[in-house]
């Protein structure tokens, strides 16, 4: 299949739903061979089927990124099936939202396990493959919550996204001499399963929209466009940056 990413192998975690799904579908349409990495086997398989139905190439791998053994298996399976990894998009994430007094240690560990540890070990496995080839693109999912607190109390989530933002900076500096670009994207409020409960009521939606200068919440495709840009040749001199796609939310 031809396109901007013809023949490139793109691993997208959390690709079964929401923004990850939008990223995976777009990669499929633009010629990449897509690894749909997803914790829910049905969601993952469904997206891989959609990509193939549109004429693309995709495999689904069931993975919980918080488990390093799963992460190793994901990259081993990718190399076995598709030879290498050109692009890694660390989208898999969860939000454990609680007031500070209610968090348990187990909840904190789960939040950090997926959003921070999972991103790190996926980056490590990808770097292992990218450094010898002197090329590669990694995009991590941060959030506007890496800059300001979320609109509801969820300190563990905000902390995890702040960590992703800084991890991106440090890995970018380390891998730049090896020709690997590492960036992050920071979506604002985006219409996905994760935000459905917030946006479901008219008051909830109106409250969010009133704070967004562009006057609308983001759609998964808005964010996918930004991710694909960071993975493209057009962005070859950008590394270590967290690209904000928030309709202006952070501006004031």
């Amino acid at each position: 299949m031809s396109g901007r990413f013809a023949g490139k192998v793109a691993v997208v975690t959390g690709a079964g739903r929401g923004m990850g799904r939008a990223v995976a579908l777009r990669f499929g349409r633009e010629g990449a061979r897509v690894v749909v990495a997803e914790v829910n086997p049905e969601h993952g398989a469904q997206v891989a089927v959609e990509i193939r139905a549109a004429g693309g190439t995709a495999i689904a791998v069931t993975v919980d990124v918080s488990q390093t053994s799963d992460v190793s298996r994901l990259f081993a399976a990718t190399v076995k099936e598709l030879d290498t990894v050109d692009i890694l998009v660390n989208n898999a994430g969860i939000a454990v939202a609680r007031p500070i007094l209610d968090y348990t240690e187990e909840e904190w560990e789960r939040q950090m396990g997926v959003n921070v540890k999972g991103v790190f070990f996926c980056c490590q496995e990808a770097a292992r493959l990218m450094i010898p080839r002197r090329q590669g693109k990694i995009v991590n999912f941060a959030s506007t919550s890496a800059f300001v607190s979320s609109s509801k109390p969820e300190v563990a989530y905000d902390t995890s996204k702040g960590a992703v933002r800084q991890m991106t900076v440090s890995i970018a500096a380390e891998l730049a001499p090896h020709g690997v670009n590492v960036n992050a994207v920071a979506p604002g409020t985006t219409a996905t399963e994760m935000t459905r409960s917030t946006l479901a009521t008219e008051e909830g939606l109106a409250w969010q929209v009133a704070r967004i200068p562009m006057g609308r919440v983001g759609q998964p495709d808005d964010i996918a466009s930004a991710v694909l840009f960071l993975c493209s040749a057009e962005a070859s001199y950008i590394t270590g940056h967290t690209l904000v796609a928030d309709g202006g939310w952070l501006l004031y």
Partner: protein
Amino acid sequence: MAVTIITGAGSGIGAATARELARRGDSVVCADVRLDTAETTAGELPEALAMEVDVTSAASCSRMVEETLRRFGDVNSIVTCAGVEKHGPGHEFAEEDFDWIIAVNLKGSWLSARSAVRAMIDAGHGGTVVMIGSINSVVGNPGASAYCASKGGVLMLGRTLALDWAQFGVRVNIVGPGVVDTPMSAKSLADPQRRARMMERTPLGRPAPPGEIASVIAFLTSDASSFMTGAYVPVDGGSLAAW
């Protein structure tokens, strides 16, 4: 087809942007304070208009947009590349040099964008503005106080105009080039010691050809950046990550 005005299109990032946007099919207005350089850029392009424009003059900026509308009937984007730089320690720097840098880099970005956005609002269809900031929008550079002040100003100007113009569907974003191989930086890059110092702070280990900035500007003037406004996008080979 989209109509894009590029100020400072006679050289460097502006010229590269004109070529990149013409390649994707935009009708391009090449504005520069030096008409001969604008004509050189426009002369290579299929659908381009060269124009002598002084961005420090509101009248000149208005004329630029009027002529654009006369020739192409519309304006969808403006990229404000016109910029100048002069080095000198802050205690010795001349007042007229300071005023000149602020007038071109900061006030010129506003005046030229203002004229274009007025036309977009009149037409009722929104559009995009891309301003050229710099890594010096966010970190300092010894001996470049006026330049750094102007680029810091451009960052906040762009962010605030993004707020003013969001209601009209006009998105405003700011790119922050690091070391770019342009006439503006030719002298520094030719000096081996200064070049080495600049590369020490550039993890990718090379200056960018202007085309690598133009490709990011192309993204910011396209629908691919549909949910981005008021964003600062560094194109600096990782300099900010390592600072």
